[in-house]
């Protein structure tokens, strides 16, 4: 390492803190975090930086320090052209975001379990289908209901017409009774027997 860890502190303006939660992600199949995995991380970051800045980044350009048992550490990236300069945070962030998927899959982790503190996740927009599905269901229900209403009304109209054709030779009395029975099915049709209940009634209706 060309730099002592003094140059890298918690307030380093060009470094990022990384946190891994391997046991949470993989459970029984969690691997142990050792220096081989750290080497993989450094080479993956070098790969991402190569893709971002088109310069020949190497494993030695990724400097790591303050490793903890949590599995978290800080890292900074040095420029391959002049190793005493650090690559700015913005480029590192863009590199990470562009290659997030590849970095995650190298470690079998996800955005939540491999955290780069300070680099927000690019969230997937919630899936919205072209026709909202509720409109389809609504259309089916309304179609069935309206069809039902038309059927009912049509049925009663046809029935009434049949009654009219049947009753022309018959009496007035039986005609009234029948039509009252068939078309006014829920009527307050008590006039015939209990007319006296309404003699007292005034014609006004109050609400």
């Amino acid at each position, binding site marked *: 390492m060309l730099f002592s860890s003094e140059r890298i502190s918690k307030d380093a303006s060009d470094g990022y803190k990384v*946190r891994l*939660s*391997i*046991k*949470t992600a993989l459970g029984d199949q969690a691997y142990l975090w050792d220096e081989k995995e750290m080497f993989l991380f450094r080479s993956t970051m070098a790969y991402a930086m190569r893709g971002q800045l088109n310069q020949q980044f190497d494993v030695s350009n990724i400097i790591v320090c303050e490793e*903890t*048992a*949590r*599995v*978290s550490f800080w890292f900074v990236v040095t420029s391959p052209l002049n190793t005493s300069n650090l690559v700015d945070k913005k480029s590192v962030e863009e590199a990470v975001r562009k290659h997030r998927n590849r970095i995650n899959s190298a470690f079998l982790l996800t955005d939540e379990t491999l955290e780069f503190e300070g680099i*927000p996740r*690019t*969230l997937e*927009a*919630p*899936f919205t*289908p072209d026709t909202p*599905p*509720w*409109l*389809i*269901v*609504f259309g089916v*229900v*309304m179609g069935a*209901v*309206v069809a*039902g*209403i038309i059927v*009912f*009304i049509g049925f*009663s109209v046809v029935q009434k017409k049949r009654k009219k054709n049947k009753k022309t030779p018959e009496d007035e009395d039986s005609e009234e*009774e029948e039509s*009252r*029975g068939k*078309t*006014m*099915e*829920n*009527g*307050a*049709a*008590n006039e015939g*027997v*209990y007319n*006296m*209940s309404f003699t*007292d*009634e*005034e014609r*006004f*209706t*109050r*609400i």
Partner: protein
Amino acid sequence: MRFVLANPGLDNRIPSYKDLERTEEEAGDRPKWDNKAQYILTCVGFCIGIGNVWRFPYLCQSHGGGAFIILYLILLVLEGMPLLLLEFAIGQRLRKGSVGVWRSINPYLTGIGIGSMLVSLLIGLYYNTLIAWIMWYLFNSFQNPLPWSQCPLNDNGTGFVPECQRSSTMDYYFYRVTLNSSTSIAESGGIHWPIVVCLLAAWTVICICYIRGISTSGKAVYVTAILPYIVLTIFLIRGLTLKGALSGIIYLFTPDINELTKPTTWLDAGAQVFYAFSLAWGGLISFSSYNPIHNNCMQDAMILTAITGFTSIFSAVVTYTVIGFRATENYDSCISDNILTLLNAFDLPEDSITTSNYEAAFHHLNSSNPDIVFGLGIKPCDMQKLLSEGVEGTGLAFIVFTEAIMEMPGSPAWSVLFFVMLFCLGISTLFGNIEGVVVPLKDLKMLPKKWPQEAITGVTCFIAFIISLLFAQHSGIYWVTLFDNFAGSVPLLTIGFFEMIAVVYIYGIDRFNEDMKFMIGYKPSIFWQVSWRFTSPLVVLVILVFYLVTQSQEELTYLVWDPKSDQFPSLASVPYPSWINLIIFILAGIPSLTVPAYALCRLVFVYFKKTNN
């Protein structure tokens, strides 16, 4: 008590026993039930409504669990059952809808029927809005993932919309996506068209189910009354296998005897019994008038009481298995979040803190580094608090239950089942509701007689749809709550009280007993006599007086969804604007006062007619 008010001409207005026997033999033109099962199912569907699922469990749990259930069952028998039999018997005897029955007993009492009709109308308006919301959720359940499981992204795609982030996906979906609620009842904010569409769907479904009166609705109840029980059983089996279900049930039934000493517990129990039976809506009288004259209405009343009691407890158990499951899930994730925060802050290895040693580890870290721990802002995870969250009303169905369903595997199927059940519960109550509106309209001759039943139903549904667009505004949810609190409470109690006084003291309890003997073959026992004359009217009067007293003492406030308030994401409590008093008078005062108002007006009218003659 032999006290009966003078009631001249009663025998001329009501059918005599001979007339009744005669019409029984003739094929009448009054609609009839196809069979007894249809009648019982219609009444069961009418009584068992959404309130059984989302009101009773909350009352049960908050008023001392097992103790409240005993109290509820006692009041069910003492207060509800006598009133129920009264409505059944009077409808079956006088063979008219609610306006016709009271007009037959005494024309001055027509106000009771009109009051019932107004109450049914007002309740029907907001009740169908609830059904419209349920239909919205039902339509949206046919997709995976469910739309209330995700927050939409904000503009630059880096995070979620803050309103959703700060509350929860279910809250956001209900208050913003479904209702687009404004921040106060005064801000109408325009019409929210998804609700209009769902209201249209709800009113057309009710229209087609009731299009020929009980001949169509009587067939529909075979599905709408039975399906909820099937779904409840399925949910019970599913619920009992979920983790944490038992903690919910224990929480529900834990008895607290001290609650029985509080008057509000008795008040709530009595009111709940009254509303559970849909008394004073007029629908039960109407339904009973289609029965054969010798139908055993006493048996029906007892059967219905038993079914109502059983269903209330059954649905409470199911509800609380799901609530227990949700609370346990939330508790577990709360603990996991806290563990993660601690691990990250102190850079400890992942397995060092688990759920079992969390408490010990937390104390250890807190004692060694209290300032760091304090700076983390760790929220304590309280199981009791989680169990008591949002477990009533719309909050239960649209927020708590939808959250629990999201956690179950195969969530769209469970969501569809749940909302179909709520839909059936609601619509079967609405059948009785619309019966209580349409039949009085016909009795009062407000609609042309030549119109067929289909036209009457269609016009009523259309007008009701137009009026219910009031609830499609952005402030719609506040209007629904207003209607629920005022139209569905005081008027019912007053009308129920007047009903009992009218039958016992104006129609005459002796005549009523004779009628019962004629219809079912024996005179009702001493239990019924005492209940009709003393117990039930007294209970209803006490509840009414207490209710009025407590309401007038409190300042009128309501809960709003306001992202800018301090208590967000909890609902903020704000006072009503002053013009709301006029609305409350229209909702609660006018239906209650129609009884004396009509009697007075009729008195005046008859007096003027006499002086003119």
